[in-house]
């Protein structure tokens, strides 16, 4: 199976080591606790575990079986078969961090290209080799801003329409920083215009973070917020949906210094929440402040182009407690998946997917708004998510939808007290007109209640 030792080999090796049994190798372990008997299920063969997990996985209702109108930070998009074909190659998934560049050019060039693709997509100058996910990328932006101002500017302004899980993660990450103050996000009306952030920005502000499209799917031009932030000497960060950038102007055009976001929509399966991909890109002025891995282009001793991990002096294993982040792994394989995805779709394909999302979402919103009792609350421009106010509790509605094979929208009331009867509906290229029409029909049933 996975350990190749035959009895004969084991004996021969023990002899070479000079001990008479394997147990002898563990004398340093306190005898009292040595060789505990673990209460684990009996071992299973590959045949048995395959059966067990097939049964368990069949116990789920996946988006392969259900029509999915659920988004709120993770999205059901089409993944071309070529993506998995590449990331299933042992050369990629069984290698590790490219510490030895001479035999890791595959991983290194792939990351370099990933950095390039994300920089091009976001309009930024540089991008790191990825963070864990969108939430931690935002947290790292906050820490970057803190370090950038050497702790002299405590105020971190988070938009109330930034993904609530991201905001929570930022608060967790910054617990140990006595000199960080998180503000802006815990307002009564999470739907207030981004302009209301402006009044919070002052010379104590290190960073303003907004989302684009925002958590509710709304598209805003943040130019004014960015301008005020910059006037006050603060940094401006934008958390993006990378698919939306196939259509929408990049955050660089309205002044972003840092672009973060969740890369999952770029060819990564939903997988109950992970592994995903934290995007992190900046203007060139901030490059040397970025945490995490960076790959740079260089030449070898024969002058041949090659790639290496660079600026490693920033990292924790060298700077130790002076490093600004402890991040060590990245989401290498997911970054690769997103690169393959972006390479396959290219300029035209990404735009097409973004347009499909936009058009289908608007069709769905239009149809839903005709159902008595339901109303579409989102009035501003939106991308592929919008808020629907419902005549029945959302949990009840979703249970009913599930019986009809439909995964309903996110129940906003679980996070926002002011949106108790609202849900957030997401529509992507995976939803056909027929799906949407069926969804609307089922909503109609609930409107009779």
């Amino acid at each position, binding site marked *: 199976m996975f*350990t190749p030792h035959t009895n004969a080999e084991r004996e021969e090796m023990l002899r*070479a*080591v000079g001990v008479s049994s*394997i147990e002898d190798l*563990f004398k340093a372990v306190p005898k009292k606790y040595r*060789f505990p008997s*673990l209460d684990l299920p009996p*071992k299973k063969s*590959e045949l048995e575990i395959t059966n*067990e997990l097939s049964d368990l996985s*069949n116990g*789920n209702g996946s*988006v392969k079986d259900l029509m999915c109108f659920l988004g709120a930070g*993770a999205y059901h998009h089409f993944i*071309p078969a*070529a993506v998995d074909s*590449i990331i299933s190659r042992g050369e*990629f*998934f*069984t*290698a590790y961090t*490219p510490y030895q560049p001479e*035999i*890791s050019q595959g991983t290194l060039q792939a*990351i*370099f290209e990933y*950095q*390039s693709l994300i*920089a091009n997509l976001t309009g930024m100058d540089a991008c790191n080799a990825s963070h864990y996910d969108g939430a*931690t990328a935002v947290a790292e932006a906050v820490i970057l801003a803190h370090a950038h101002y050497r702790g002299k500017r405590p105020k971190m302004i988070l938009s109330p329409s930034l993904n609530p899980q991201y905001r929570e993660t930022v608060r967790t990450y910054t*617990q*140990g920083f006595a000199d960080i103050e998180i503000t802006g996000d815990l307002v009564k009306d999470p739907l207030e215009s981004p302009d209301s952030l402006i009044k919070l920005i002052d010379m104590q502000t290190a960073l303003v973070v907004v989302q684009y499209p925002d958590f509710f799917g709304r598209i805003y*031009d943040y130019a004014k917020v960015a301008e005020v932030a910059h006037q006050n000497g603060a940094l401006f960060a934008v958390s993006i949906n990378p698919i939306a950038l196939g259509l929408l102007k990049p955050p660089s055009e309205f002044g972003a210094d840092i672009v973060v976001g969740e890369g999952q929509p770029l060819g990564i*399966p939903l*997988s109950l*929440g*992970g*592994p995903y991909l934290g995007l992190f890109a900046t203007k060139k002025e901030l*490059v040397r402040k970025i945490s995490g891995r960076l*790959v740079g282009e260089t*030449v070898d001793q024969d002058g*041949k182009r090659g*790639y290496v991990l660079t600026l490693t002096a920033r990292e924790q294993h060298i700077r130790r407690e002076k*490093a600004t982040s*402890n991040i060590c*792994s990245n*989401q*290498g*394989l997911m970054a*690769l998946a997103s690169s*393959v995805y972006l*390479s396959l*779709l*290219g*300029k035209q394909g990404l735009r097409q997917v973004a*347009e*499909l999302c936009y*058009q289908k979402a608007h069709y769905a919103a239009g149809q839903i708004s005709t159902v008595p009792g339901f109303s579409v609350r989102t009035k501003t*421009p939106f991308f592929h998510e919008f808020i629907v106010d419902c005549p029945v509790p959302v949990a009840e509605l*979703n249970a009913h939808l599930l019986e009809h094979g439909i995964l309903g929208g996110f129940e906003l009331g679980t996070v926002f007290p002011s949106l108790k009867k609202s849900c957030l509906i997401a529509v992507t290229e995976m939803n056909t007109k027929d799906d949407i029409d069926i969804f609307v029909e089922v909503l109609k049933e609930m409107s009779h209640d």
Partner: protein
Amino acid sequence: MTEKTIFELSSPGRKGVEFPAVDVPTTDLPAEFLREDLPLPELAEVDVIRHYTHLSHLNYCVDEGFYPLGSCTMKYNPRVNEAMARLPGFAYCHPLQPVESIQGSLALMYNLQEMLKEIAGFAEVSLQPAAGAHGEFTGVMIMRAYHQSKGETKRTKMLIPDSAHGTNPASSAMTGFEVAPIATDARGNVDLAALRAACDETVAGIMITNPNTLGLFDENILEVIDIVHKAGGLVYGDGANLNALLGIVRPGDLGIDVMHFNLHKTFSTPHGGGGPGSGPVGVSDKLKEFLPGPIISIIEEGDDEMPPLFGYYQPKNSIGRVKSFNGHFGMHVRAYTYISMHGAEGLRQVAELAVLNANYLLSKVRGAYKLPYDRVCMHEFVLEGMFDDVPDVHALDIAKRLMDYDFHPPTNYFPLIVHEALMIEPTETENKQVIDSFAEAMLNIAREAHESPELLHEAPHKTPVRRLDEVKAAKDLVLCCWLPENSE
């Protein structure tokens, strides 16, 4: 041959994937928000497949051969793991689905929590952290939260032996602790005198790596833990080296209060060229309430007719979530598969053979290389990659020369407490023949270092590129490429 970048391979108008036409009545796009240009490369599917196939051929990987990268536990990644994580019922569930529709996945996560608790002797586990360093950070935050909850706000000092893992100081610093290093004694254990001296009322705890980065099990571990506990501190165990302890000893039994697991090291989930990892955190009873949520629990007990209903719970004084959603579920599936296929005996065998392999390899190279701490090692050991009589040969030269013998080099220049360190971890999935040939290569290289050191200085010779100019990379800092100017 140099592989072009995908940007250089682009040809305007080429398409890799087509999508269906819009099947709904259309709405005008908001012109003021539209981007003018989307500077992405344009390739056909065949171009993309060839490009990444070429890149893959430039990598060394576990599937190719021995990868004794110390402290990284580059064991073989079973193929069944990959198949299981890709089962559509697992790969295509949305993290916010109603729990009723994801009982299979929640059952798996619940069972994995239970398994990890049992394996390491903890009271509760959170699967949320995304990687080892993330788990460390989470663990340290939990230690902080514990002291805060007791009002012990003056406990700001984190003790870190100099034989601990490299991420520990940064994890502590990020959490607001001051780091106090503790020396290692002549046998490679924590220096007890130094430890005692550091243990005052400001101690929050210790972050100990055991077996440590020398590959040695601390012979005084119970005393170390006792000293810290008596000082009112907590003990963090770095789980990166857990592979050596499976079925050998449970960190929780030793008195360790909190530990992260590296599913991608110990439990065979693949390393993916840098990640994703997965770093669940286990804690003793008194720290349960601080874990990041959600944690999977049984929210309705089952009976003969009905299975239990699994759901989420939020520990009451949770430090809060450390990332979105539930953690790296795809990695949980793989680790669950691996643990299930081993059972208690199989896991013990993993540790035993990992340790046997390390000691066997050590027995073959001892003598040719200096061994600063000569004891029975655990799953790895550290040599000095230098020779007194050829002072210009360095660990790096040995590492690079190993590539010419078709091996991945060991970790080098870590731990910092060994000069020119070469940290070697063979793992249990390597067979005797492989270890024999690696040992032979090491012995050859030791000979070459004396007889023809230029072979080492100029190594590697057989790789796709030669030694790379790292200074130029950091100075010129080319981090991205762009579409060729004439492409449109």
